[in-house]
Structures are given as C-alpha cells and as structure tokens.
C-alpha cells in the first residue's frame, strides 16, 4: 500500500494494516505456541482508531463554525447589555467633606449625624425589578487574612459556637465567643438606603431573598443567633439583630459571600416598580461604613438586568472579536489553499524525496 519509494525494504513482519490506521488483524492467525497469548489488538497497539488530520476543509470549517456561532452571540449580548440601565452614584466623598482624618473622625464618631441625601436622575426607563447594589472599591474582600477569618461550622451549627479558632483576630471578646466570628462578619457593611421619587412617593425596597437560597437553607443555621457581636472595643461595621437567627440575616449572608475582586457589588435590595425616564430618585442614606481610613470608595448602583445579567459589554465585544478573527483566518486560509494548494499525502514532500541522496 505504501507507495513510490523504490528503496523500501520489504519487511515481512509488518502487520497488514489498512490505511485508516486501524490495523486489520489476521484473525485467523495460526495457532501459536502455548505460552504465547492470542493476538490482541490492544497489546499490539492496533486498536481501532480515528486519526483526524488537519485538512483544509476541516480547518476552514472550524474557523467558519466559530465565526457563525460567535458573531450572533456577540451581537445579542451587546444588545442585551445596551438595554440595561445602570445608575452609579459615588457618595462617600459627597456625603463627607474635608481631609482624610476629618472624614475618618466623622465616620467613627458615635454622635455625628450621618444621614445624607442624594438625588439620581433616571435617563432611561427602568423596568422592574431594579436591583440596588452597593459597590465598594479598593476593598480586598479576597485578602488572605480576611477570607480565612470565618467559621463556617459556627454559622451552621449551634453546637459549634466555640469553633472560633479560624476566626482570629476576631474570635472572642470579653472572654466569650463571638457569633458570628471573624473579620468577615465583623466588617459587615451597614450603610442603609431609602428611595423616594420626585413626587415624594416612597419606593419600597424588597430586601427579602437577596441572598442565595442554598446559603439560607444550609449554610446559616436557623437556630444560631448572633451573640456577643460587635462587643469588643473596636467596632468594624454593622450590628445584628440578636433576636433573628442567622439564616434570616440576609445582609450578613450576602456580605459573607466574599467577593472575588477588590471592586465588587453586593445586592442591597430590589425595587419592584418601573421607573420612567426623566424621573429623579431621592436617596436618603445613612453613611456609616468606614472606607475613608483606607481610601475605599462607596457607590450606590441601581441597575436593571437583561437575560445576560448586568451592564457589561465585554462578552459581546470579546465574541465579536474572536468571531471576526476567525472569519479573517477562514478567508486567509481559503485564499492560501486556493492559490497554492498542497497535495495532501504527496510522498514527494518527504524530506528524503525532496533532496534525493542526502541522507
């Protein structure tokens, strides 16, 4: 079956093998010696096999397939992202003026009035549900010290209340275990927002079911109540209602799903009415959370959603880019193969046939 090379030695021991790569075993091989096992495709490495080869057709089809799949996805996700209305308002500097130390002093003081009013203009009609997020910048919720400082056992089981060794340095206060312990819980975000429209009608915020159901059901115990929380001399953030079990403290549950990146949003609640374009939303917020001491930023975000989530053009752009690139490659290869085809499997291309005599 192999062609053309005049000097090909005949080798009597080569098994006959069809060109597809799958050898055709001589099934009626003569009975061999007793010690010798039967011919087996496996041991002779002649299992039936498929040998894909990059033929021009396959290459071009692959690129075209990617183009055909990616461009529509890219376009639809760009459109989806364009439909999302997002209002972002940075309020940390707007609510407190002055130098850094003044801000820190203001935010740490127990007595200062921290209420702050912001008004947001809706430029485009927002369909319900409108998600209300707070966004923190430069807050490393993924810091090694921080993510490790929690006790998932304690959150879940009443019996594991004292399982706080992993929560250091916020494991106990006044000689008692803290529930929930650890830096993550301790630094609970505690700014609050209330919204009203320009005609002074209150916009209700639904804060129910803002956390994962799985977390409420399994991760946070229904019989575990906050205890000894924020009782030490150094208070990190929000307090908890000690009469509610942890699995109903949804702000805590949301907060404790630590963010992946130093800039992150967390769901605060949902507004379940549409807001027309041109309306102004007044936000009354309690600016309690201290990001000033480490130059963190706080933003309030109102956003609608599409089938693909929030406003993000990246996926659309990426898909269009990849799809476009593949289209380019497909055309380039088509031209190459049309202009200068290479005969596949032509033995004349073999190095020893190209320059004869040169071993």
């Amino acid at each position: 079956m192999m062609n053309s090379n005049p000097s090909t030695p005949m080798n009597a021991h080569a098994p006959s093998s069809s060109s597809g790569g799958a050898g055709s075993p001589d099934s009626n091989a003569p009975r061999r010696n007793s010690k010798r096992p039967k011919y087996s495709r496996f041991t002779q490495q002649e299992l039936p096999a498929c040998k894909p080869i990059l033929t021009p057709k396959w290459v071009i089809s692959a690129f075209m397939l990617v183009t055909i799949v990616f461009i529509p996805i890219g376009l639809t996700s760009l459109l989806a992202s364009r439909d999302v209305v997002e209002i972002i308002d940075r309020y940390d500097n707007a609510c407190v003026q002055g130098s850094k130390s003044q801000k820190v002093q203001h935010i740490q003081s127990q007595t200062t009035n921290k209420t702050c009013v912001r008004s947001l203009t809706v430029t485009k009609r927002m369909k319900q549900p409108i998600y209300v997020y707070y966004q923190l910048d430069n807050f490393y919720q993924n810091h090694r010290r921080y993510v490790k400082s929690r006790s998932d056992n304690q959150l879940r089981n009443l019996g594991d209340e004292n399982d706080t060794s992993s929560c250091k340095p916020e494991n106990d206060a006044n000689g008692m275990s803290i529930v929930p312990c650890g830096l993550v819980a301790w630094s609970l975000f505690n700014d609050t927002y209330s919204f009203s429209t320009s005609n002074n009608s209150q916009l209700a915020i639904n804060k129910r079911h803002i956390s994962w159901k799985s977390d409420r059901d399994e991760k946070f115990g229904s019989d575990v109540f906050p205890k000894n929380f924020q009782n030490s001399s150094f208070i990190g953030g929000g307090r908890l209602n000690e009469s509610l079990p942890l699995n109903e403290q949804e702000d805590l549950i949301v907060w404790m799903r630590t963010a992946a990146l130093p800039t992150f949003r967390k769901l605060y609640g949902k507004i379940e009415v549409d807001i027309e374009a041109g309306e102004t939303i007044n936000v009354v917020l309690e600016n309690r959370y201290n990001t000033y001491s480490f130059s963190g930023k706080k933003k309030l975000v109102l956003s609608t959603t599409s089938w693909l989530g929030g406003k993000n053009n990246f996926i659309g752009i990426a898909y269009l880019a990849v799809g476009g690139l593949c289209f380019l490659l497909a055309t380039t290869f088509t031209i190459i193969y049309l202009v200068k085809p290479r005969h596949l499997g032509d033995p004349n291309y073999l190095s020893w046939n190209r320059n004869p005599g040169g071993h």
Partner: protein
Amino acid sequence: MTSDHSSYAAEMSSDEPKSADLQPASSGGSFSHRSISSNTWRANSIKEVGVIELGSKGGVRYGSRKGGSSSMSMSRREIRDEDSRLVYVNDPVKSNESLEFAGNSVSTSKYNVLTFLPRNLFEQFHRVAYVYFLIIAILNQLPQLAVFGRFASILPLSMVLLVTAVKDGYEDWRRHRSDRIENNRLSSVLVNNTFEQKKWKDIQVGEIIRFSANDTIPCDMVLLSTSDPTGVAYIQTINLDGESNLKTRYAKQETLRIHEVEKSSGVTIKCEKPNRNIYGFLGTMEVDHKQVSLGPSNIVLRGCVLKNTSWAVGVVVYTGMETKVMLNNSGAQSKRSHLEARMNREIIILSFFLVALCSIVSILAGIWLRRHRDELDIMPFYRRKDYSGEDVDNYKYYGWGMEIFFTFLMSVIVFQIMIPIALYISMELVRLGQAYFMIRDDNMCDESTNSRFQCRALNVNEDLGQIKYVFSDKTGTLTENKMEFQFASIFGVDYNGEKTEFYGEQGGYYAEVDGLILKPKMKVGVDGELVRLLKTGNDTNIGKQIYDFFLALASCNTIVPILEDTSNTAEKLIDYQGESPDEQALVYAAAAYGFMLIERTSGHIVIDVLGDRQRFNVLGMHEFDSDRKRMSVILGCPDSTVKVFVKGADTTMFNVIDKSKNKDVITATESHLHAYSSVGLRTLVMGMRGLTSQEFEQWRSSYEAATNALMGRARLLRKVAINLETNLSIVGASGIEDKLQQGVPEAIESLRMANIKVWVLTGDKQETAISIGYSSKLLTSKMTQIIINNNSTDSCKRSLEDALIVSRKATTSGENPRLLALIIDGTSLVYILDSELEEQLFELASKCAVVLCCRVAPLQKAGIVMLIKNRTNDLTLAIGDGANDVSMIQKADVGIGISGQEGRQAVMASDFAMAQFRFLVPLLLVHGHWNYQRMGYMILYNFYRNAVFVLVLFWYVLYTAFTLSTAINEWSSVLYSVIYTSIPTIVVGILDKDLSRTSLLNHPQLYGSGQKQESYNGTLFWLTMADTLWQSMVAFFIPLLAYRKTDIDGSSIGDLWTLAVVFLVNLHLAMDVTTWTWIIHASIWGSIVATIICVIIIDVIPILPGYWAIFHLAGDGSFWFCLIAIIVASLIPRFVLKTVIQRYRPSDIQIMGEVEKFGDLNESGSAEIEMNQPQR
C-alpha cells in the same frame, strides 16, 4: 589417570574466545561489593542472577586469559588467614564456632513487617521528587505559612507514597513467599554417619551433603566424591549463568572416599572469603596432612543442577546469602535517558520562573504593605491588631521584612507545581506502560525459542528513538551461533558437494548399541562423495585419511554425549553437550558420517565407527588456551597404538605442522581455508601424529609431574603441550558455517536507511568479518573499503592520514559520492585508542557509512563505544550476546542483550534483551520512535499543564493585594495534578501513535525525527511557554473582565477558572492527539467528567465557603459564554500555528500521516472515500 582439568576450556574455534574469556583478573577489589539492588520498579527474581560484575576497570584485563591459567596463578599466592575461612569437614559445630557463618536460609526480600514502613519510606524519599513534595508539605504545616489545609497539603504526597508502598509491599510479599519455598526444600545431610533429610535453611557450613541426579544444589560446596570412579560430575548452570550446556566438575582424587565417616575427621578446607565471582574459587584442603589445592572446577554452586551423574557428595563452604549466586543477585546499573537529562535543563529554567514569580509577588506585597503601613491596623480586611486579649497586640504580623519573606515561602507553596515534580512519577508510569507494549509485541517475540522481549531497565525507553550509532557483536548477534559443519578439506581434497542427502535412509545415520537405536539429535547433511569413499575405500590411502579426519572430529573435544529418551523406547537421541558450539558442530558432523561419540568418561571414550563400537582410552588432554589456540588429545587406540590429535586455528596449527611432508597438501589446504573464510566460514585445522612408546612415556612423566604440581601448574602443562604438539602431519580442515540470523540483511538495510550507523565489532578474522559484512548487506560492492591493519603507532598514523585523504576525496567528488567502509583490526586499535590518533579515527569513522572492527578484545569494544560517546551527543546502542560484550553494553547509552546461545551475562548487563537481531528494527523504528515522540510530547505537555494553572493563580494574586489567596478552591488546586489532568497525559503517553507501525517500518527515514530531536527541543519549549502565557491570560482575564463590577463571589469565579483551565488543558491535549482510540477518548472525556463531578462534590459540602456556587454559576449565561470563549480564544494561536506549519513546513511525520489516511486514494483509487475531496 588423573584428570585435573580446569573447568572452563574448550574454545576451539579460530574465532574470538567467547564466554570463557571473561575470567576476572583479580579476586578481590572489584568483586567485593555486595550491593543488593534497590531498584524499586523491578523485582529481582532469584533466577536472574549470575552476572559477573564488570566494573569499568579492573574486572577484565585486555587479553586476560583462560580460567585455568588465571586461577592457577592465583593459587600461587597463599591465601592469608584473615582473608580466608576455615571449614572442618563433617564438623559443622567446629566450623562455625569461632565465626558465625551465615545460615543457609536466604532472604531476597527487603522488608519484614516491622521494618516495612521505615525502610520503604526511607527508600522512597531517595527520590528528589518526593523530597520536594515533603519539603513543601512541611513548609505548609508552619502556622505562618499555612496556605492549604493540613490534610489537603499532604494528600498528593501521601497518595503517591501509598501507591508505591503497596506496590513494593506486594513485590516483597512475593519474594517472601518464594524465599519460604526455597528455604524449606529438603536435602540429605550427613548427620551421625547417616544421611538425613534436612531443610535447606538448616544447612550449616562444614556439613556433608549428598545429592543425586537432577537435584538442585542448596549451597556452595566443594565436591568430595561422585558416582563416577574418577570423581567427575556434570552440572547444569542454567540458573546461575543461563548456559544450558553441561559443565564438568571434579572431586579430588584424595577425597573420593571421604564421606565414609572415619576418613573425614581432621580434613579441613581453607578457602577465600565469600565473593561474587562465579568463575573463581581458591582454596586448599588438608587431607592426611597433605595439601591439596582446590580451584573453581572443584566446587558446585547453589542453584546448579546435577546432571548425568547419579550422585555426588560435597562439603558445604558457603551458605545462604554468602553463596555466589546470592552475592550476584543485583540488577543492572541504571542509566539515565538522554531526554530526561535534557528535560532537567528545562526544569531548571522552570525553577527560575518559579523564583521569579515568587519574587514578583513578595516584592509587590512588600510595596503594598509599605504603602499601607499606617492603615493596616484599621483596614477591615487586614486588621493587624488583635483586641480579644487583655493586651492589644499584633495578630500574625511579624514585621515588614518577615512578611515579605513569608510571602515568598507561601508563594512557593502555592506555585509549587510550576516545577512538575509529579512528572517524574508520570514518566515512570508511562515507561512502565511502554515497556508493557514492547514486551507484548508479537513482532519481537521469537517463536522458535519462545522468548519474549525483555525490558530490564525502565529508564531509557525513549532513547530508543534517537539512536545514531549501533555497535553490534557478530557471533551470536548477527549470526545464530548455531554452527553447522559445511565443508571438509581432507588431506588436500576439498569435499564440498551438495549437502542434501543423508546417510542411508532419510533418518540419517544411527548406531545400534545393546539393542538400542541411537541417533544424533541434530541431523547434518553429508557429502555424497565422502560417504561413498567411507563405505568403499576402507583400505585405500584416502580411506585411512578420511578415517583419521573423522576420528579427530569425534575425539578431539570435550563434548559429553547425553542420551535422551524418545517416544520409542528402543530409540534414544544423543545430545552432544559442550561449551563450544564449534565442537558440537564437528561432533554432530562426525556422527552423521558414522563416527558417533557414544560415551565419555574421564578415562575413555566410546565411538561407534561405522557400526563398530570402539573404545579409545583418553590418555591425556591438553585443553584449549588462547595462547596456543589449539587443543590436543592423546588417544590409546584399540590397536594399542597411541596417537595425538590436535585441532586449532590455522595460524597456530601451521606452525606446528611438519611442513617438509606433503607440501602440496598443505598448500591445497591453505587455499581451501582461504576459500572457506572468504565465504564467511569459521575454519579449524586438524593435525595428528603417532607416538612411539618412548615418546609417550616421556610425555606421560612430564604430564603427570605437571598435573600434580602445586605451583605454576598451568604454565607447566602448557609447556608439556607445546612439546607434544610438534611435527604434526596434516589431517584436514573444516569449514563451519555460523548462519546469519533470519532477517539480518533486511534489518541492517532498514537501520542504514534510518540513518543509523552500524558498526560491527567482532573477534573474527578480517576475511570472515568482511564476508559476513557482505552477506549481511553491511558492505556492498559499491563501497570503497579502507582497511587499517597495522602493528605500530607510526604505521597506524600513516594509514589514518592516507585514509582521511581518501575519504575527503570520496565525499567531495561528484554528486554521487561513494560510500566508505572502514575495516580496522584490534591490533591497530591498540595503538589508536587512548592516544592522540583517536581524534583522527573519529573523524575518519564519522565519514564512513560502515565500520567493521575485527579481532577486537572485549574492553576494546567498550573503548570504541566511548570513542563516539565522548565526542558527540549522538546516542549509541550496543547489542551483543556474549560475556565479551558486557563492557560495551554497559558503556553505551542503550545496551541490548541477545538471549541466545551464550548464556545470560550480556542479558544481565543489558537494558533490554531480545532473541533476534532483526527485532532491533521494530524496537528502534517503531517502539523507539513512538516512545520518544510520546515522552517528548508528554514532558512539554506537563510543563504547559502545570504552568498554565500556576499562571492563573499568579494573575489572581495580583488582585488580592498579593496575599496568595486563591479563588480556586484548595481541594481543586490539590486535585488538579492528581485527578483532573493526570490520567489523559499518561494514557496518551502510553498509547498515542503518530504513525502506524507499517509506515514506520516501510519508511525507516522517519526515524530521523528522533535523531533530529523534533519532539523535544529548546524551540518547542519556548513556544510552549509562550503558548502557556497566552492561554493562562485568556483563561484568567476573560472571566475577570466579564465579571468585573458584579456581585460575583470568589468561590464562583474560582469554579469557573477551575473548569476553564481543566477543559482547556484537556482539549489542548485532545487537539494534539493523533490516534483516537476508545481508551484515549475515555481518559480525556472521563477526566473532564471527573473534574465536573469533583467540583460539584466540593460545592455541596456546606462548611466550605463555596457551597452551591457551581449551581448558581451554571444557571448564569455568562458562565457558559466565558467557558466557550476561553477555550476557543486560547486554542486559536496554537491551531493557527499548527495549520500554518502543516501548510508550509510539513514534517515527514505529518506527510506520512496524510499518506496513511489518503494514500490509497493516490495509489489505487480504493473504494474507501475519505473526506478530503475539496483539495484534490
């Protein structure tokens, strides 16, 4: 008639001295180490023993001589007391009282229940890989550095340790079992004057043991007496050195009746301390205040089997672990593969990468800490202060410098798999798998001997794919070493007629003795003319000469006839057992012509001469030694004349033949000899003369004096022999064919086409070597032969210079340069090797297509291998079958032993063993090619696989204030290289085939890809690393940008990264697989499924932070879009590069792959339509 022959003699050909030539020159030094191999991947079976350890120096002296002379020369030296052991015969209590000798129980096992754990762990931690794992795991246990949980961090190491320990334990259990069986075998031991059955393990030094035919000998013993009145015993040493022929051992005359108890008291044996030299023994025995010297022919060794002797009695001198067979129980030395050495360079580069990554992280962490030093106390995500205690102090903060240092160590832990240490373990598994397939290959299994390919070393598999030089022995390697008598020249007449007829009917010649029909086991074709002359011309002159010739063939040897039963009770087969295949051939030939050797004792032989049973007394025998290169036997004929028959190599025989008589016969014989050797036959010359009674008496007295001499016995005997072997008249000459093995010419042609240079190193004469060269197609008539055959440095220098000029001319002249063949002999090599001429020889040899070295000594073979190894990076392979090839087998990068006629020493020293030379072709061209290609790819892939994961971790660290937190769950990090991605690479490393066996065999040029290092080189490494960088960036940044400013949590995006990287890495592999069998499908897709399952399992554990993350994530469209985009975008550059290379610079392998797939469309227009229509 006392015969005190040394045991190893009888090498009668004009050829190189074979197996017996490797007598160690010294008994001390090089044999004293008793290492028991600790190669954990191979069980040392008790059967695989008996190699003489050939150290790189010392063990063999160039030109070292026969056993007789060397052991005798040793006996001249007194054994010093401190180097000896004293054995009181039949008094084990006294023998053992001063020094406790080891008992006879053997233990080949390494562990017992108590020592298993510590010892096995100790041995496992000899590997660098495990130590690295261990250090990382220990570092991780420090509270400051605890990156992973305790359990997660030790999981990979403990899994590897466990698997290895189970395997070692199982092997050791099997050894225990076989030891137990061995130790509980029974032997009959003399206790209180009667022989009682005793377990082997209870046998003690000094005891007297009796064993009968076919018994295995339980320990090393000095023979005292045997059933033969002269004290001869025949033993088979197949378990010791693999040689299946019988060897003779002798009991001393003085001890023949010693087992009768009253005589044994007071007999002591003083012998050397236990050593591993199976061919040496030195001792003296004191019997009746008389010193008797003991040599290697007086002992029988553990593991041997008594044959052809109904019983024998011996005294135990070495027991148990001190027996020679146990001391030799060590494996082949390990070599390291070229590819692995190359890979280690890249591993060092990778460790620089690792250090660089860790430095970047720790420097950036330092900067970050410095910039935020005032905020550390108050930052909610750092909060340096611990307020819980009475005193407010720092929590886990050890100062700026220490934090940087700890960050560095932690990053080493996190990025540890950047150095793919597990690769070493994967490589061993892959080699194990490759070895399995090599062993199972039907094409490398010899049907006739039923012997399979053997992998004795597991670390040079991939070197088989890169061989540039093959050094081959001739006899037994290219040829079968099954000698066949072809031509006879009797008294100047050449009988070389057709060999088709057999004597008489088709059954061949047979003799009838006592109603039994005796037939030789091997039939030899006979010359019709000769048979006719034998039958008719009994009284003519020619008839007498022919009679003498065949009598010489039948008598002048050391062959022992052994009767074998056949199905017919009245018929027996005679099997001629002897150490020299040439002698066997001669005796079989004599038998075919009607001179059948029927019986041999030490005193006489019985020959059936054309139906007439005649008894010849063997009055004396001068065995072969390599100075005289001949042997002689003194026969007392039935007509009471005494004749001496001599046979030997032509060079020495013509010196002792009386040239004045029969001048024309001598010239005719010489021309016949030339004709024989030029067709590649091995030649021997026979001579004889009658002895007058005076001459005989004179000889006998000097012979007896010499045999009884205590000092310089061998030298005296040689002198006697030289005096006797003079003035011979010529009888004739024989031509023995050593047939080329099946398929050798084709194999050599294939190797040559594969651009492998084949060098033949042989002990043969130049003419024989050249003629074998022609018949094996090594030499062709188109070649220019350069012959270097000198005996001084100056003349060597001159011929080398001339040859270089010739070679330059030949290579530059014209477009079709003539191929050069260099033929060089051992004497010239003596002057060239290790001198400044080496360089010239190398230059010359590298220009020659073929190199033939004739008349080379064993160590010269190694020297020639080193000539190439020291000067190039090209890989060398040595193949041989005899003990004289051991040195080159050990020196070459790959050593192959032919398990053929000549014992197992070559096999014991080799990395691979096979039955036939032609198996070299599938081994190199098919398995070597596959192994290399698979291993090369696997190494690169493992580098990539680990680096891409590490880089994804690294990019994330840049977004965590450089604190080495990982979004990827710690369990996933640990399982990544254990479960998620490990199996497919091993499976592909074992099973993927770039080309089919047929293509590789039909186009040996494809082997060049390994020689040119096409599967693993620096360019590929850096390309892979660049690809890795790109893929890691795509895999990391697409999710990052897609989920920027969302409420994504760390565990979810970590799951995304995990799945993305695992999918990517497996699909990358899938893209590179050429042959998709169901196993590869199963492993790749199975790994992906296993990963998904693992990720799900990890995410349904509520106490882990990532609880349920994967389900939330998978419900989100962007997750799927990210995953698809990552896979497509990462693989595009690689895919494009592959396509472009395939279009513009296709490798031979790619083209051949296309030929395999589409070839028959081009050729025959087969009905099978493939999917390649468009471009056609």
